[in-house]
């Protein structure tokens, strides 16, 4: 159609010219994109002030007849800055290559959803995009680590248990949890985890964690329904879209990026007793007091205490915590060669990373090769990204906790035991963690995987594009663990059963295909239409196979072939899970006069995890926006450059659930057969009526830029209603199963986010820029309509040692439930409780529990500043949180509640001081006792306010004149320090099994 018009135009122009007998010349040339050198198709080329014009063809070429006397020629294309070039009779050759630039603001502000791209100005969703430089500026550990410093809604849960173990995958969430706790334990998949999209394909958290940051081009977080609904039933936890760099056109270019880091264990949260304190504590607790009437027993205990005291007098005071830790050295390298011309572009990369954790024996190595190819011919483009990766990890076999338990009055030694009771004495030996760690134990894993993503694009017309893609991922991981037969845990095991070897193999294969059509057009200059529609299917299959062997006799020779047999009553583990999903989706956007925006999404999802009755589900969203800065009354305003109001509503769902929960499954009861043959019984009870968990998500927000783009503000307010919740509910025994997957009640969340970025000094021409950024977020959730569904969880929480989470209507998922405490009664040393009705009582009744705090802070976020001066840059980012509480388990378990066995482990210093006694009546803690049980009360709930130095960095980019001689086109250095300090209002032991680390990294980037 276009072409016919163009030809008609040309013809008429020719006719006119002929009529006027005016002399004309034909200009020939090609229009290309400034960013990648690609020809631009369908650029309108017009002689200014006339109707005469044409469009570029599929190769970007044009021919235009112009008056030889000269004229202005204008080149226009949607999303690009208009180019107007004066033709004089002499400069025809300069028209052979026209370079067009994307609109300056738009270059930065394109939202990549993984399905379609949209200019920020015409997008109604809530999202945030970060480029590689921004990510690298705040840290170089991994993409997600940096993301949490940049966006307040993105959270990586700190694991008190596993600390900075490089081999533990973190729990990640966007805008809080939508699912009930406990599901992860049941299913192994985190139901609150966002969806990760890498180069348009769904991927796993682990892949993102392993991804070398230097390969990343941009990361987009999609938060609200308008932006996530295109992913339908996988989207209710938000979406993280990661695009890797595409090879740039041009001569062969080689770049090297290197990161060199040091990690130091952060043991400041430990507050353990020294040798003298510990012995005093044990004495007060009655460890050396015999309760039997045997006179020799008391003599033995006296001697034991004296022996230990003598050791202390000799100066023994072992700091065990420093034994398993080391300075971890991390180095990562990435080499990338890229180049090509119009038709073919290529990129070949190799990445290697070696992360040594701060605990000895903790290591993670990754090796990854990738090949990117793009071939473009005429209206077709083929691109393929292939990556192959190898992973090797190892973990320390002796937990950090074992060192924290060791008493400081024992000498450091290579002995098997720190203490071994004499013959005939009824006492437990104390194993030496150093002995166990020194044995030939290992816990290691390796994995090999490849991913191939192929995309075919057909530029059917200027406004219409078809895209077909297919991605395949295959991985195989092997985990092996070996405990030496000399390990003290085998002391009571028969000679032929000592030692343990276990082997687990995990094979995964997943594929995803997608066909879509994208349409984009501006009608009559005022109506901008965008539409995407497509069909997507995906499948994943996982097999886990494992076995164990025991009966090793030698520490050194550890091959599984030396095993004596299999553990008694053990059988091979095997499990398999297959998930399939198929969907149809459509997205439409309409912009009127750049001012009024509307978006809608619809997706029909089907998934194998849900019962035949509920197999398909609809996801929808609508969004609207208003670009106030485009209004006529503000158009001439220089101060306010951008002001958009937007709002959206939609119902994305969640399908992070087990593969076979919808129907009942059976298994053979192979433990016995009878004369009638084999038997089969129920394995798991399905619930065919199970409904998808969905979250109706509302969001209103504003994006504001003013003062010459020096101030950027983004504000969002959202509320979410997850209804129904899907939960594993424990059932009465008479139902025949102990738990069943059910829909129960709903969870309502509301919250807000604010991001401010201010540049008080902004002189781009001098390359001087000073930024201050501040963001904050807050959210509140409550349960509704859950009734008694979780009464079992509540009951087990009440009776559990430290469980403070309860599930009641109106209650918050993060509330801390405990009985209020009025402190320790000075007269008696007993704890005084406040009952539900406000009266005081010495007796603890679990039914007096009320909400005594909430782990969700009232407000939290990041503030920081960055200074760019010529080639130098410096920045720092601080995390703050305020208004939350925490149940201090360190105080609860390591100060009070030290049981008869725990008393032999080293404890928190506070266990000795501030304890009630006849002489210290105004104490915060009860008197020292081995037998007294302390109940969960508000005495252990403390305000959790914190300021954390999350990221500090210094950078330098070498100026051209310095490096050109070395034939280097770019060279930069950056020094980053993460988690440099923490100031907290509460002191809790963190890093129980693995300590936390502070990291300093030097990043080097060279481009030749």
């Amino acid at each position, binding site marked *: 159609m276009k072409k016919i018009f163009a030809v008609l135009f040309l013809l008429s122009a020719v006719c006119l010219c002929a009529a006027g007998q005016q002399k004309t010349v034909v200009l020939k040339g090609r229009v290309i994109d400034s960013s990648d050198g690609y020809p631009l198709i369908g650029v309108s080329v017009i002689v200014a002030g006339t109707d005469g014009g044409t469009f570029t063809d599929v190769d970007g070429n044009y021919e235009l007849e112009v008056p030889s006397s000269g004229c202005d020629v204008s080149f226009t294309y949607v999303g690009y800055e208009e180019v107007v070039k004066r033709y004089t009779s002499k400069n025809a050759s300069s028209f052979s290559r026209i370079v067009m630039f994307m609109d300056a603001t738009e270059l930065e502000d394109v939202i990549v959803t993984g399905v379609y791209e949209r200019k920020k100005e015409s997008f109604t969703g809530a999202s945030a995009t970060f480029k590689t430089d921004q990510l690298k500026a705040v840290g170089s550990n991994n993409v997600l680590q940096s993301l949490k410093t940049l966006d307040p809604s993105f959270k990586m849960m700190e694991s008190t248990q596993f600390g900075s173990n490089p081999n533990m995958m973190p729990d990640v969430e966007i805008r809080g949890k939508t699912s009930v706790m406990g599901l992860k334990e049941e299913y192994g998949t985190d139901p609150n985890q966002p969806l990760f999209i890498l180069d348009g394909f769904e991927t796993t958290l682990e892949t993102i964690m392993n991804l070398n940051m230097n390969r990343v081009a941009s990361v987009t977080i999609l938060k609200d329904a308008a932006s996530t609904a295109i992913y339908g039933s996988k989207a209710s936890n938000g979406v993280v879209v990661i695009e890797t760099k595409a090879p740039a056109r041009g001569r062969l270019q080689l770049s090297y990026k290197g990161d060199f880091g040091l990690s130091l264990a952060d043991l400041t949260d430990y507050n353990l007793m020294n040798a003298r304190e510990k012995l005093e504590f044990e004495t007060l607790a009655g460890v050396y007091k015999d309760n039997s009437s045997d006179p020799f027993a008391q003599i033995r205990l006296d001697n034991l205490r004296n022996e230990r005291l003598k050791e202390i007098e000799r100066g023994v005071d072992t700091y065990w915590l420093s034994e398993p830790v080391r300075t971890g050295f991390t180095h990562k390298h990435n080499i990338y060669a890229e180049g090509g011309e119009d038709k073919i572009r290529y990129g070949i990369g190799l990445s290697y990373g070696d992360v040594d954790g701060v605990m000895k024996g903790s290591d993670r190595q990754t090796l990854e090769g990738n090949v990117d190819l793009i071939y473009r011919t005429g209206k077709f483009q083929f691109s393929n990204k292939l990556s192959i990766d190898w992973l090797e990890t190892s973990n320390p076999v002796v937990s950090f906790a074992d060192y924290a338990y060791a008493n400081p009055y024992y000498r450091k030694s290579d002995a098997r035991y720190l203490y071994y009771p004499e013959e005939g004495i009824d006492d437990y030996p104390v194993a030496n963690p150093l002995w166990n760690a020194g044995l030939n134990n290992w816990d290691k894993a390796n994995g090999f995987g490849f991913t191939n993503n192929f995309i075919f694009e057909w530029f059917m017309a200027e406004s219409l594009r078809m895209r077909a893609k297919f991605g395949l991922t295959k991985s195989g991981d092997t985990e092996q663990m070996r405990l030496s037969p000399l390990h003290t845990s085998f002391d009571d095991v028969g000679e032929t059963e000592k030692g343990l070897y276990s082997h687990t193999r995990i094979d995964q294969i997943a594929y995803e295909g997608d066909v879509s059509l994208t349409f984009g057009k501006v009608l009559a200059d005022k109506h901008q239409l965008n539409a995407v529609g497509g069909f997507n299917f995906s499948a994943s299959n996982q097999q886990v196979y494992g076995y164990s062997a025991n009966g090793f006799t030698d520490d050194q020779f550890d091959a599984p072939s030396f095993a004596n047999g299999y553990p008694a009553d053990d059988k091979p583990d095997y499990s398999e899970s297959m998930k399939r999903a198929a969907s149809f989706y459509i997205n439409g956007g309409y912009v009127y006069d750049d001012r009024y925006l509307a978006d809608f999404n619809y997706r029909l999802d089907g998934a194998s995890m849900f019962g035949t009755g509920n197999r398909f589900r609809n996801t929808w969203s609508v969004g609207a926006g208003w670009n106030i800065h485009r209004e006529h009354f503000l158009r001439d305003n220089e101060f306010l450059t951008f002001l958009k109001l937007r709002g959206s509503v939609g119902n994305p769902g969640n399908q992070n659930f087990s593969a076979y929960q919808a129907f009942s499954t059976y298994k053979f009861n192979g433990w016995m057969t009878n004369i*009638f043959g084999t038997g089969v019984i129920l394995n798991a009870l399905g619930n065919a009526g199970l409904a998808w968990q969905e979250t109706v998500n509302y969001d209103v927000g504003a994006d504001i830029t003013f003062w010459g783009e020096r101030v950027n503000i983004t504000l969002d307010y959202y509320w979410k209603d997850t209804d129904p919740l899907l939960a594993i509910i424990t059932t009465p025994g008479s139902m025949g199963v102990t738990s069943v997957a059910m829909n129960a009640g709903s969870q309502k969340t509301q919250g807000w986010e604010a991001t401010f970025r201010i540049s008080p000094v902004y002189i781009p021409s001098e390359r001087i820029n000073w930024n201050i950024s501040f963001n904050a977020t807050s959210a509140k959730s409550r349960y509704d309509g859950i009734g008694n569904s979780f009464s079992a969880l509540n009951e087990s929480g009440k009776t559990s040692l430290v469980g403070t989470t309860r599930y009641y209507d109106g209650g918050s998922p993060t509330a801390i439930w405990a009985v209020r405490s009025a402190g320790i009664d000075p007269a008696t040393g007993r704890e005084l409780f406040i009952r539900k009705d406000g009266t005081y009582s010495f007796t603890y009744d679990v039914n007096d529990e009320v909400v005594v705090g909430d782990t969700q802070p009232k407000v939290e976020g990041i503030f920081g500043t960055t200074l760019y001066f010529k080639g130098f840059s410096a920045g720092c980012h601080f995390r703050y949180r305020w208004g939350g509480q925490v149940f201090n388990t360190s105080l609860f378990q390591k100060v009070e509640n030290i049981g008869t066995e725990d008393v032999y482990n080293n404890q928190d210093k506070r266990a000795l001081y501030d304890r009630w006694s006849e002489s210290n009546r105004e104490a915060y803690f009860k008197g020292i006792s081995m037998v007294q049980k302390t109940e969960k009360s508000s005495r252990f709930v403390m305000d959790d306010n914190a300021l954390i130095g999350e990221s500090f960095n210094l950078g330098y980019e070498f100026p051209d004149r310095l490096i050109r001689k070395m034939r280097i086109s770019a060279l930069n250095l950056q020094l980053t320090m993460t988690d440099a300090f923490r100031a907290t209002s509460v002191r809790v032991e963190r890093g129980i099994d693995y300590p936390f680390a502070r990291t300093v990294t030097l990043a080097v980037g060279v481009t030749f």
Partner: protein
Amino acid sequence: MRRFTLILTMTAGLLLAAGCAGWLDVKPYDKIAQDELLSSEEGYMKLLNGVYVELNRDMLYGAALSVEMIEVMGGAYTIGTDNSVWGNYRDLSEYEYGTQYWRARLNETWDKAYSLILNCNLLLENIDADRALFSDDNYRMIKGEALAMRAMLHFDMLRLFGPVFSRNPQQVSIPYYKAYTVVPNSALPASEVAGLITDDLLEARILLANDPVRTEGVRMEQPADGSSNFLHYRNLRLNWYAVSALLARSSLYFGDKESAAKYSMEVIKSVDEGIFSFVDKSLVTGSPDDPDRIFSSEVIFALSHSQRNSLFRNYYDPSRIPNYVFRMDNDLMGNIVFGGGALTGGNQDDYRYRVNWMATGANRYFYKYSDMVDTGNIRNTMIPMIRLGEMYLIAAESVSDDIAAGAPFVNILRSNRGVNNISELTREILQYEYIRELYGEGQLFYMYKRMYSPVMFSSVASMNPEPSDKIFVVPLPDSETEN
């Protein structure tokens, strides 16, 4: 172009609607999906057999409800002194159900019984729609057995956890699950549960009307043509007579003597028809080295436990440390059960004594579950669940309100045990007969509970706990009350 878009979109839509429904139907490989299992007659047979196999678990009739927990509660054993071995059993013999150990054990039993009820319900829920899958009379056989199984398990849970029925029939007891559900059922008054149990048994009885056991006997051998054993070894399945026997047992428990008499006599009649027969004297006295200790020809329904010998080895075998195994109180045995003459009916000529009680040192030990020499014999796998002898005792008790009128039934049984008649039947003598006949089969506790009489641990009446709810009513397990 628009048209093309439209066509593509429509094609995609159609593909999704038509192709995907099937493609999305994923069946697991490491487990058996229900519609795969229940797609054939064989699948139903496997599921039903799976339930029979699971009855052999230790927390059910593989120990707890046959020889161990329930017999300790029924006063069958003398409790030793060593706390590390006997501590928990002493608690139980003092009816301390609240200890951590027994709470956990009772919980286990309860959960397992109800999980098997769920298995029955899943079978019953689907079998009617799949009726076309079944050949011959197998639909009725399978459904009948599953209903009887569901009733039997509920009945035993009611007997264990329910009230003393004769005193508090309206007391809330246990839930009765008639269908697979994800919503918990609440506990019902005992009398309602009784009605539901009776209904299920009656329906099972109708369904099993053509059970081959009624015409061809139990058929304790494989079919001559090598085909499936499904309709053989009927005494290892809940056959028509077993259902009648359960009806007799439950009717008596629920106080319906008329029905108890009717159904027990129906089973007794089978002796005349040659279906079940009293144990041959020669098998007992003629082969002293290898007697048929469980009197297998009298067993109406038994479990088949491939390691049944472990019941003997774990609980009774004196070649373990003798003080650590179960045995009867010496005075109770000597003065009452197998002694005491006409007053008690106890007699050492009794087959049940001669075959099953062997002396080691000063004590006698219980050999009912000791293997016959002929290993591999199916008899060595049997754990009797209900037997002919009990039918005579039920008939004796229910034929008239006057217990003395039941003497002839007891005497028929006694004549087949090689002991002389009793002249007058009393409740005590009937109880002694129960002990002689059903010792080690998990019925004594229920008998005392039903009659609301002291539990006989000893021959000294003052040593035996008086009847009370504390003794007889086991509290509902934690898993039931806390969820």
